[in-house]
């Protein structure tokens, strides 16, 4: 379908959610053959809704930090297919496996159908159903009792939802903490120090000629995968002149690294040292302006990091470092990027700042084909930007306060900290210690089973919202989320519930419902001027147009001005590892399950991890020769022991795995989280050592050493590979080209 056609359809469907009375689960689609011989006359016939015909609605998904504009195909009141919104600047009609799977979240068989109240012991997962009226009364009394000492835990929020969260915390006198992947906390701090920016940056990959990436999974689950993939496509197709060249530096040939022209192995946690060494080579050999380096690496004597001094620590040769530096400085524009496991070390912040500072050396900050800084939200009061997560170190006093009874009420939404934080912190026991816990969740997960009251909330395709993506595309952007189908179960909007709670607590909010909030704020955007919609004066028409487009953005407003040197330097540090094992333990987020928050969606469970092609399980990637040495092969169970505990997982023989690193994917090991995720595999968060990043206090999940022992058991690892040979039998069709000049 052509872009313009999409636009027409999307715009035509401005009236919002389809209301298809009577088409409930008990009647159609239940597989009862006799229904096939029936045909239904609906009661209402909304203007934008024709029976027997599909319609596409624009909405948005805030789930990935970057956020995506979506179009959803709705057929007789049921969402069938999710695709990217062709107009939305971040994903331009493209989408990820996760976004495609949102329909499974909507129609998940284990979705909670209505309010639940704890029955029996906490954590047992035994609940009894109650009506929304009773649930609301109970919730209100908890809010009244919890006034002054309430803790609200959410996933990353921005835009209208963040505005309500602010109002709520103010009204109740409570505290709001955000749970997000801990390496992002380090990344956000690095952006503050290197670029002086509160927001994650946009990378102009399309115009770049060289990408030097230290571990960031930017094509898979990192900050904005679709946007960066689109940029990567342009980068490889040679939009900026020649085909861009991509070198990946890090301890793992990850799903992203496999796309690199060259992968350079370095020991875990030595990214920062190598970056300083690159800077040393570039300045000492006159590849870049030497004067600039002193202000960029303020307080660090670069000569201490000459290649021969760093090489042995990083596990590579000095020549390799020099070669890298020459390649990076030689191709302009060039981008240096770092993230994921590079940030998850005790020296994670140093790793990131040292790498991102390289962009200053080659003049790529704020330049075409470089790093673009994102501006503030167009309306910071009513549409706050995304704020960073709470570090592991900051979680500790919070958990202690819950444990000691200092917190009377804990509210949890869109976060599963009991699963995602190491058990050493004791959050599970703290929540079981008598504090009232309310979970706004659609699924019974590890955190929700600790709750006294479960209030199910609407999922992405059922709710309203305005989101400020972080990272944005380099200019102010707001995504509009609208319901594309009627709620499938008896759930309520989280924002509506929070507005109600804030009112109960004595606050006075200018909006009564989520929808009213969205409509009001879009009106304010119109008054503020600018944006993608011009020539529309009538507020109603303006809103409908924003609905059809899927959001508001102003590509004429330039990105924030870029600084010329890092705002604050970071001290150089070497990584520290916990434990006596002889191998590094490197857990890694996979492109489908990420850190385990999407494990309940069967399409994602059944999606092969790109490198190993394994599915539905936890395994450990062991280098082929290491495996031979240990006497194990694919399918053999091994026991991994860290200072925290030990687990048994199956071996996957991986010829790309480093000889002294054991790789374990995140995502599994849910005790309870729907029929597709529970009691499946192991959770790496539960057996890594709870080390923290030295400065930010974020969990350093890659800073553990591990030992491995054969367990004399064997399983059949479920995977795609096997029906096809792992090594090609004919010469791989590859064009070898000369190195770019």
């Amino acid at each position: 379908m052509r872009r313009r056609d999409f636009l027409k359809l999307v715009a035509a469907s401005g009236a919002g959610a389809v209301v298809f009375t009577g088409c409930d689960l008990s009647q159609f689609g239940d597989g009862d053959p006799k229904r096939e011989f029936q045909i239904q006359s609906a009661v209402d016939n909304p203007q934008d809704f024709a029976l027997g015909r599909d319609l596409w609605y624009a909405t948005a998904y805030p789930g990935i930090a970057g956020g995506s504009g979506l179009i959803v195909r709705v057929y007789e009141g049921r969402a069938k297919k999710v695709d990217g919104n062709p107009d939305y600047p971040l994903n331009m009609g493209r989408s990820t496996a996760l976004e495609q799977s949102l329909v499974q979240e909507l129609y998940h068989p284990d979705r909670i159908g209505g309010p639940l109240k704890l029955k029996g012991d906490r954590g047992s997962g035994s609940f009894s159903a109650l009506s929304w009226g009773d649930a609301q009364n109970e919730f209100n009394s908890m809010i009244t009792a919890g006034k002054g000492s309430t803790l609200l835990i959410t996933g990353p929020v921005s835009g209208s939802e963040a505005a309500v969260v602010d109002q709520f915390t103010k009204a109740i006198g409570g505290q709001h903490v955000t749970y997000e992947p801990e390496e992002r906390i380090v990344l956000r701090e690095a952006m503050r120090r290197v670029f002086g920016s509160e927001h994650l940056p946009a990378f102009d990959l399309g115009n770049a000629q060289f990408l030097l990436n230290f571990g960031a999974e930017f094509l898979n689950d990192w900050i904005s995968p679709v946007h960066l993939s689109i940029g990567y496509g342009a980068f490889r197709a040679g939009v900026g002149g020649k085909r861009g060249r991509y070198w990946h530096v890090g301890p793992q040939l990850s799903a992203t690294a496999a796309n690199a022209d060259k992968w350079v192995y370095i020991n875990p946690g030595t990214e920062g040292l190598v970056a300083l060494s690159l800077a040393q080579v570039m300045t000492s050999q006159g590849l870049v302006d030497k004067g600039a380096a002193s202000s960029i690496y303020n307080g660090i004597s670069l000569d201490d990091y000459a290649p021969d001094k760093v090489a042995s620590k990083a596990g590579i040769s000095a020549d390799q470092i020099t070669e890298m530096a020459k390649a990076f400085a030689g191709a302009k524009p060039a981008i240096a990027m770092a993230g994921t496991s590079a940030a998850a070390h005790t020296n994670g912040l140093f790793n990131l700042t040292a790498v991102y500072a390289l962009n200053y050396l080659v003049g790529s900050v704020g330049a075409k084909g470089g790093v673009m800084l994102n501006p503030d939200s167009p309306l910071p009061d009513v549409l706050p930007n995304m704020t960073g997560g709470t570090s592991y170190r900051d979680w500790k006093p919070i958990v202690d306060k819950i444990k000691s009874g200092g917190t009377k009420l804990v509210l949890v939404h869109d976060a599963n900290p009991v699963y995602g934080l190491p058990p050493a912190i004791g959050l599970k026991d703290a929540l079981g210690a008598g504090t009232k816990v309310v979970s706004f969740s659609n699924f019974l997960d590890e955190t929700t089973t600790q709750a006294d009251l479960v209030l199910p909330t609407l999922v992405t395709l059922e709710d309203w919202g305005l989101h400020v993506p972080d990272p944005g595309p380099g200019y102010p952007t707001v995504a509009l989320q609208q319901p594309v189908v009627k709620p499938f179960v008896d759930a309520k909007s989280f924002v509506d519930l929070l507005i109600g709670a804030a009112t109960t607590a004595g606050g006075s909010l200018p909006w009564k419902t989520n929808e009213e909030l969205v409509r009001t704020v879009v009106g304010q955007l119109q008054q503020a001027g600018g944006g993608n919609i011009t020539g529309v004066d009538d507020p109603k028409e303006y809103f409908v147009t924003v609905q059809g487009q899927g959001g508001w953005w102003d590509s004429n407003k330039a990105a924030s001005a870029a600084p010329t040197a890092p705002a604050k330097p970071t001290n150089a540090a070497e990584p520290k590892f916990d434990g006596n094992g002889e191998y590094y333990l490197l857990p890694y987020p996979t492109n489908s399950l990420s850190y385990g928050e999407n494990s309940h969606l069967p399409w994602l469970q059944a999606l092969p991890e790109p490198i190993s092609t394994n599915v539905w399980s936890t395994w450990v990637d062991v280098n082929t020769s290491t495996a031979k040495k240990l006497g194990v092969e694919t399918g053999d169970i091994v026991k991994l022991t860290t200072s925290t505990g030990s687990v048994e997982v199956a071996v996957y023989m991986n010829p790309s795995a480093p000889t002294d690193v054991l790789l374990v994917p995140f995502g599994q090991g849910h005790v309870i989280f729907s029929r597709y995720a529970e009691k499946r595999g192991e959770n790496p968060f539960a057996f890594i050592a709870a080390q923290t990043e030295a400065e930010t206090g974020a969990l350093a999940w890659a800073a553990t050493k591990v030992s491995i022992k054969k367990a004399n058991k064997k399983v059949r690892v479920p995977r795609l590979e096997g029906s096809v040979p792992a090594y090609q039998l004919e010469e791989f069709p590859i064009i070898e080209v000369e190195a770019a000049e």
Partner: protein
Amino acid sequence: MGRIIKPVIVVVILLLVLAIPALAVVARSYILAPVAQPAKAQPIAFPHSIHVNVVGLDCTFCHRGATTQADSTVPALQLCMGCHAIIPTTDRPQLEKLVNAFNSGTPINWTRVHQLPDHVHFVHAMHINAGFNCATCHGDVASMAPGAVVQVRDLRMGDCITCHRENNAPTDCSTCHY
């Protein structure tokens, strides 16, 4: 005698067994054929005759999808009520059912008369736009008794293919089956 009866019985049984396929073919063409089925019970005895012959409505007034899309679609009750809001229901039990359903917000589940299998994709719009009348396949629905619409045309693959051949329409499998 016994010596003759035994082979005769064997032969008769053999003939009966051999006749089963032949009978099945005959049954498929006559007793089991869609057109041989009696009218199915409907929740409301809807009189097509009044709407077409007396009021003079076109088929597509109610079956709005027929000219533009795959499904011809049955109308929503809202459309019925466009007229029926002002038509008295006294002594009209069938009409009362409609008004009650609309007022209580209950959709009406009609019994399908023309049921094609799942793996057949029929598109009304293509046939109407090729110049065929609704009656070509559905017969004279207006003259059928209220609530007793029956299938008048075989509409099995042989029927479809014959018509497609006569009219130079595509007979590729993928035209209908996917």
